[in-house]
């Protein structure tokens, strides 16, 4: 049982960072939701605020690392052009998809969408983390701002989820080996 260098990077990009991203999102959402002065004491607000710092900051860092490894490692192998005369496209996922009319849309639509929108997630996640740190415990007393931040946070997650799902489907159709 072993992973090639490319498979290891793909697993790091999609599975390890993806899992961290998902965990951080879950912690962030739970903290946003429960950060209400009528539900918790001032000590509880402090504890939830620290959890919120962790959830939003870790999600932002995981999102940046995911897009950087995706773009500058995995995507390079994905889009590499095969030498002329190549008939075996197993090491050239993009060429393999485009050579098969039944799979070409995985590149033309799936990858074209994924490679661009994925970069929106870290921008939004960073903005949320910065605003959470700015407000700190005061956020518990600002229900409207908390709702706005939760909305942007969920949007960042939703965009990353679309990109991640496309990545999983594309990897199934033409893996980076």
């Amino acid at each position, binding site marked *: 049982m072993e992973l090639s260098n490319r498979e290891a990077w793909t697993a790091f990009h999609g599975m390890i960072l993806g899992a961290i991203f998902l965990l951080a999102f879950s912690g962030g959402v739970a903290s946003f939701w429960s950060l209400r*002065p*009528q*539900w918790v*004491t*001032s000590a509880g607000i402090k504890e939830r605020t620290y959890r919120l710092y962790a959830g939003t900051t870790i999600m932002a860092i995981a999102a940046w690392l995911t*897009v950087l490894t995706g*773009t*500058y490692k995995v*995507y*390079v192998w994905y*889009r*590499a052009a095969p030498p002329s005369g190549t008939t075996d496209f197993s090491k050239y996922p993009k060429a393999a998809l485009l050579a098969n009319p039944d799979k070409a849309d995985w590149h*033309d*639509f799936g990858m*074209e*969408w994924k*490679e*661009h*929108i994925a*970069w*929106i997630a870290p*921008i*939004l996640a*960073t*903005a949320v983390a*910065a*605003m959470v740190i*700015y*407000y*700190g*415990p*005061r956020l518990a*007393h*600002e229900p409207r*701002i908390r709702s*706005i931040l939760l909305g*942007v946070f969920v*949007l960042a997650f939703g965009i990353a989820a679309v990109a991640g799902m496309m990545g999983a489907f594309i990897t199934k159709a033409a893996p980076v080996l």
Partner: protein
Amino acid sequence: MATMSRSQPEPQPMPSGDVPPAKRDGFPAATLMAAGVGVFVLGLMTTWAEASASMKSRLQLNDDVGPLSGKTTWAVIAFAASWVVLSVVLWKRDKCLNIALGVFAVLTVAGLVGTFPTFFQAFG
């Protein structure tokens, strides 16, 4: 038959000394608008690269990555630069979050449209 009821603690008002003071919303407004600018620039670059071959080649900052390297680099630069500028301008301002939210929504929707393949490929 005995009924079970979950007893919930009565909400207790927080002692006023424990409530942190209100903060101006200039920095959050700047942050939201800067995020919108970053998303919008990504959508703009994506569509522009499709419409113009010379733009596409200019965006190729890294040969291995192709034009995606330029589109994303410029989007991140736009996000960071506008964040700095808007933060300096709005730092001491207050009550500007509603406008910022509107600007963010418009720019983000435009950016999402600009990065949607069916839209930007129509310019190819």
